[in-house]
């Protein structure tokens, strides 16, 4: 049963990845007995599973995802939130307040106004309706300081790293608070502007070279150089 590429080779949409008794995973699809890539990325053969780690995607919401969003509208019972996805999300007042929402007394724009950034979680999303968010969990809510960075959502797993290895290295080496949204938005916060700059450089490097090997070491080295630790 033939495989047509080596693991981690770059493949393009329409490339024939495997033929035979295989299953199509992410960014791949099956037609008759053939598995093709549907996105540009690195092919991964894992036993019977054939999939592609995409080099660029847009954010497609998934229930449970942590996302960073920007308030775009204040509505009657909540807010519209831009979560960098094809779908506009909504945040109901009941998912933002810890007490019941009283329309006559609560002015929504005083709680969250247009342009505010929030760290939220996706609680519902399906084919028939737009995603719904909540900020009622402990670490969620309005983001008050830090720099916002935007990367392709496809790179987020690489920025987090296997078992969080990359993100913990970054936090440690740059001494920054780094909050990662599954939707490709990242907040870098530190008391030191220079630290924030270095963290930004590191994230940009990861985004550029996400598809290469030995990346964690190269990024660590770059950060240390920038900080003058070498």
């Amino acid at each position: 049963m033939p495989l047509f590429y080596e693991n981690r080779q770059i493949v393009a949409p329409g490339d024939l990845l495997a033929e035979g008794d295989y299953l199509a995973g992410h960014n791949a699809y099956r037609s008759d007995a053939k598995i093709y890539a549907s996105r540009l990325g690195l092919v991964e053969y894992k036993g019977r599973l054939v999939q592609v780690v995409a080099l660029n995607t847009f954010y497609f919401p998934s229930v449970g995802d942590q996302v960073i969003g920007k308030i775009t509208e204040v509505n009657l019972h909540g807010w519209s939130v831009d979560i960098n996805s094809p779908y506009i999300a909504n945040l109901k007042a009941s998912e933002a307040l810890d007490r019941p929402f009283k329309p006559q007394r609560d002015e929504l724009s005083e709680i969250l106004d247009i342009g505010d950034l929030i760290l939220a979680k996706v609680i519902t999303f399906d084919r028939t309706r737009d995603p719904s968010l909540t900020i009622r969990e402990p670490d969620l809510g309005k983001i008050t300081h830090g720099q916002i960075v935007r990367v392709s959502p496809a790179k987020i797993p690489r920025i987090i790293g296997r078992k969080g290895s990359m993100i913990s290295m970054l936090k440690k080496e740059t001494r920054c608070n780094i909050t990662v949204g599954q939707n490709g938005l990242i907040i870098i916060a530190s008391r030191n502007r220079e630290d924030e700059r270095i963290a930004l450089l590191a994230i940009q490097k990861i985004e550029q070279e996400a598809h290469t090997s030995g990346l964690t070491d190269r990024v660590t080295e770059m950060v240390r150089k920038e900080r003058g630790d070498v």
Partner: protein
Amino acid sequence: MSQKIVLVDEEGKRTDGRKLNELRPIKLKVGVLSNADGSAYIEQGKNKILAAVYGPREVHPRHLALPDRAILQCRYHMAPFSVEERKPPQPSRREVELSKVIREALEPAIFLDKFPRTSIDLFIEVLQADGGTRGAGVTVASLALADAGIPMRDLVAACAAGKAGGQMVLDLNDIEDKEGEADVPVAYMLNSNAVALLQMDGLLTIEEFKQAIDLALDGCKQIYVLQKEALKAKYLAIKEEAEEVVEEE
């Protein structure tokens, strides 16, 4: 028409020195615009065409949204300075027709049902035109869509074949299109042996029509290889450079 232009000489050479079954030189570049979600640029002979994709995103106007899939909106447009005689900026009937046939050529390649209630907005800007712009437009648009991370069944490659100077030729340039006997633009999805765009104007016997299609498909297959290379090029270059560094140490 008193002037007779020689489209193919006795040695089988065309007005631009090409052989009958030769494509014009093609240059492809992916990811050329920073704001668009996906973009690509093509030069094919004197054709210079940019394609940009925004989306999937909210549908405007909203009533066009479909509950079970995304829609593809396509605008093929020629810059006023792209042709010999200045073309007024308003969409001509030809541009409206080409926007439609190009859209219909790309839709079958996209997994539209994965993103209901959204729109994929594709813009094709012809900066300089020299015949065969709809084919080049489809070719470069496929790359822009792939660059945007839109899941596709296959890339769509396109080019035209036809008859000029009494001979069957591949990839007609402007003068061959205007003065020749027939022009057959074709867009093709290799994996499924599927023709996604097909037009013809001129006069051909059924046999010649078949020859033109075969010739065009041949051109499409060559273009398909170039498309794949162009998509992978950017990342391959970074990979080589980055992994070279590791080896050096």
